[in-house]
């Protein structure tokens, strides 16, 4: 067991090793080429590097995989961001007439950041996270993943841990990459339920009829709510927290519950009282929707999107497999099949995987192989290198994702050529 702690001061020493021996270039290139269907798709893609001392370099672009490798190994960026596919090579954006250099396509992306939940989590605040509040990210992924697949019909969703306190989603379907700014913002708004800033107390308001998307989302929230909110966050335990919840209720219910809560201290039972009060109000009241129990659940658990990130075609987002300079953790794909088991604190840091590289191989046979292969070209050595580290399973996930995309691309092409044969 390695016990390497990450120290940001070591980053300049670790990055060269990471980019030389571990970064999964071939998968990365395969991803952003999208089967080479559109010409210059990779070549016209903007990359942006953050270097030491927060120096950032925008509009980088590369003509080949080896070009990308060389540049990354030369610059050793602290952070890598991916931007749009442009009409021209981004590295030459100054040479084309202004106005003609335009962002054409990009994955539809979502950015969910734990800091946006500060008013509804009691365990941590700002950049801190813990296993308790991480449930919020799990809920967010479940809700958005379902909606993007079932409602919007997308198939190729890459969920990535941001490396610190949030998750990103890259929707890679061709249709998603071609969406207009208006369409992106419409999708993001469809998916946003929590509205309002610091001057708004009640941030979720439901009205009749409850849209199927909201019902589906509520199913997810209801599954996690008792354990997460009532037990772990102790939503109805402390006075301050109870007051906050009650401030979201209509006045008559508020007084009724305040009374009940004088004697009833058990949070789960307190919630039951609130629910039945809501239910009762719903059946007796004539005036409009009365869904405050649902509204509370959503306000405390529903995913909070940074809509602006999703809207813009040219908006940059941190790349998968980039390192987070503050935590040292790698931005790795998340396995949705084991989503509930995903633990951000288990995600390998750059120091860990670099150390794993130096660890003598347990298996002697492999050790011999290793020696035999020393003369092999870099690429194959690198594959063996990362397979030796904790990064391996995440690269494998990425491979699966790319395979699925490749298969459906092939299917599309077959369909097209079948159609042509008919004539």
């Amino acid at each position, binding site marked *: 067991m390695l016990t390497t702690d990450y120290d940001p001061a070591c980053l300049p020493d670790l990055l060269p090793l990471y980019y030389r021996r571990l970064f999964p270039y071939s998968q990365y290139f395969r991803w952003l080429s999208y089967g080479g269907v559109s010409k210059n798709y990779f070549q016209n893609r903007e990359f942006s590097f953050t270097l030491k001392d927060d120096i950032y370099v925008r509009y980088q672009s590369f003509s080949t995989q080896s070009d990308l490798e060389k540049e990354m190994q030369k610059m050793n960026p602290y952070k890598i*961001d991916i931007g749009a596919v442009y009409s021209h090579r981004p590295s030459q954006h100054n040479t084309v007439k202004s106005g003609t250099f335009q962002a054409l396509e990009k994955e539809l992306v979502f950015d969910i950041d734990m800091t946006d939940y500060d008013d509804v989590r009691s365990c941590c605040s700002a950049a801190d996270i813990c296993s308790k509040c991480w449930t919020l990210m799990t809920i967010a992924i479940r809700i958005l993943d379902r909606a993007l697949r079932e409602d919007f019909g997308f198939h190729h969703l890459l969920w990535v841990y941001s490396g610190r306190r949030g998750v990103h989603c890259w929707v890679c379907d061709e249709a998603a990459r071609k969406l207009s700014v208006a369409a992106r913002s419409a999708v993001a708004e469809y998916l946003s339920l929590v509205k309002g800033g610091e001057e708004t107390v009640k941030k979720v308001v439901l009205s009749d009829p409850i849209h199927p998307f909201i019902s589906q989302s509520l199913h997810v929230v209801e599954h996690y709510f008792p354990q997460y909110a009532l037990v772990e966050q102790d939503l109805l335990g402390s006075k301050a927290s109870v007051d906050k919840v009650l401030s979201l209720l209509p006045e008559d219910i508020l007084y009724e519950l305040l009374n009940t809560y004088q004697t009833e201290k058990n949070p789960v039972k307190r919630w039951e009282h609130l629910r039945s009060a809501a239910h009762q109000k719903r059946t007796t009241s004539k005036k409009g929707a009365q869904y405050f129990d649902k509204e509370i659940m959503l306000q405390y658990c529903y995913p909070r999107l940074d809509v602006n990130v999703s809207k813009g075609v040219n908006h*940059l987002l941190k790349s998968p497999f980039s390192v987070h300079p503050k935590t040292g953790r790698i931005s790795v794909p998340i396995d949705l099949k084991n989503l509930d088991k995903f633990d951000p604190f288990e995600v390998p840091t750059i120091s860990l995987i670099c150390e794993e590289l130096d660890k003598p191989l347990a298996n002697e046979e492999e050790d011999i192989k290793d020696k035999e292969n020393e003369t092999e070209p870099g690429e194959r050595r690198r594959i063996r290198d990362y397979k030796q580290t904790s990064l391996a399973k995440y690269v494998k996930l990425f491979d699966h994702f790319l395979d699925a995309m490749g298969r459906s691309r092939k299917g599309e092409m077959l369909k097209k050529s079948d159609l042509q044969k008919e004539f």
Partner: protein
Amino acid sequence: MSPRDNTWLRLARFFVGDRTGKIIMQFLGRKKKVTLNQQNELYGHCLQFYCQPPLENISLNEFEGFAVDRLKLLKTVENLGVSYVKTSEEYKTKLHTEFSNLGFPHKVGADESSSNKNQAGSTEYEKRRKDHISHFILRLAYCQTEDLRRWFIQQEMDLFRYRFSELKSQYKTDFLHKNNLKYDTISDEEKTNLKDQLINSSFSVSGTTVAEQDFYKVPFQDALDLVRTRKVFLKAGYAYIPHQDIVTIVLNDFRTRLSKALALTARSLPAVQSDERLQPLLNHLSHAYVGQDYSIQKNVGKVSLEQIDQLSAKSFPLCMRQLHKALRENHHLRHGGRMQYGLFLKGIGLTLDQALQFWRSEFVKGKVDTDKFDKAYAYSIRHMFGKEGKRTDYTPYSCMKVILSNPPSQGDYHGCPFRHSDPELLKQKLQSYKLSPGGIVQILDLVKGMHYQLACQKYFELTHNIDDAGFSLNHPNQYFIESQKFLGGGKEVKKEAEIPQKGQENTASNVPSVPPSRQRTTTQAVDDMGDLDSYFLDE
């Protein structure tokens, strides 16, 4: 009265870029008599898709009159859209009145009263002709830049939505048929399978109506307005639209066509521009309603940083007062707040150096040190002043922009307090600012009726102790200027007509309209900048 006369225009030649126009022109060349049938066909319905350009000859006077009237109409559409819900009775009534006053066709069926004179004195045929021609004239004036096009499309769409939804069902069908608009409907079986979802997706659908009405299945990209507001059922990338909401898809078609047509019109602009009679007129039209944008300041450097606290209490509108307070308290503002407040401060006369000093001195009191400030924030402030990136000199946000775009979310203090606050919190805030209970009630009533700018104007009147502000508020910087005028010069406000040498600024601030074009520039450019900014701040 001959077409060669200097006061006459041949409309047809302006739309040569429009393929339909070209064909018809050639056609006309051979057979002149077709024109009348053509026109009757064209004006056979009170609403049209503007597929065919007008080909007749028209006098310069009429040309100008039509254009100005339509501009007035579009301007009304824009203003009403901010003050009222677009489906409300008030919105409809006011727009209806404007239609009658300006003599545009309205609420009349395809075959009714085509020869009846109405109050305004023109026949239905004349009105339809005016609708048709004026639309095409404004295309000429508004095709020139991206911003003008965006504004024009937006207003024409709102106009079309209103007119289409006012049609009786029979005329809607008739309209679809005439314009050859066909959309895929779903089978009864699919309807039965999806019944619950369809009912729960739209306010207008109930158990009985599912069976009765048609549902159209279109890619969700074609029904963005319904998707955005979650008013439609979505499955596997398709939107299932009840017949009742068909306006959405028709409108989508309308937008697509208009947008393409404008691009084509732009190509034939040289022909228009070579006509020296038209050039000034069209320019005038596209700029006629561009009001003050508060970007050019004659009082640059007249405000000192020490004055800001005091000014924020006396002369800032509530939105800026709120931002200022949040900044002083948290020593930080998020991107949306920095943009809204930073540009406002620029507008009241802060120089770049002052702005840098102002933001730096506040941010370093919080979690940001000087070094981090210079790296992560100074750039965006220089950007605001047009010193970085595209070097656009950004203009301060208007009320409309503050109210409509980029609503505040978690951690944000920007936006319009009248629009984006809980009424209860707003009430408390107004109480803490010592407004009279009666005044607060008036403000909250205006807020309830969604008259946010009027509510703000009432706030101005109450905080300045006057009965009537005497201006129509549409810009936070206008609020500031008016307040300063009031506090400083007393009655000077009323005398501005006598001091024209003071320039555009004073007079323009009294024009009750909001500049459509320049602000759109801001929006676009600011989005670009948002990228950069968030890039810095991403984790």
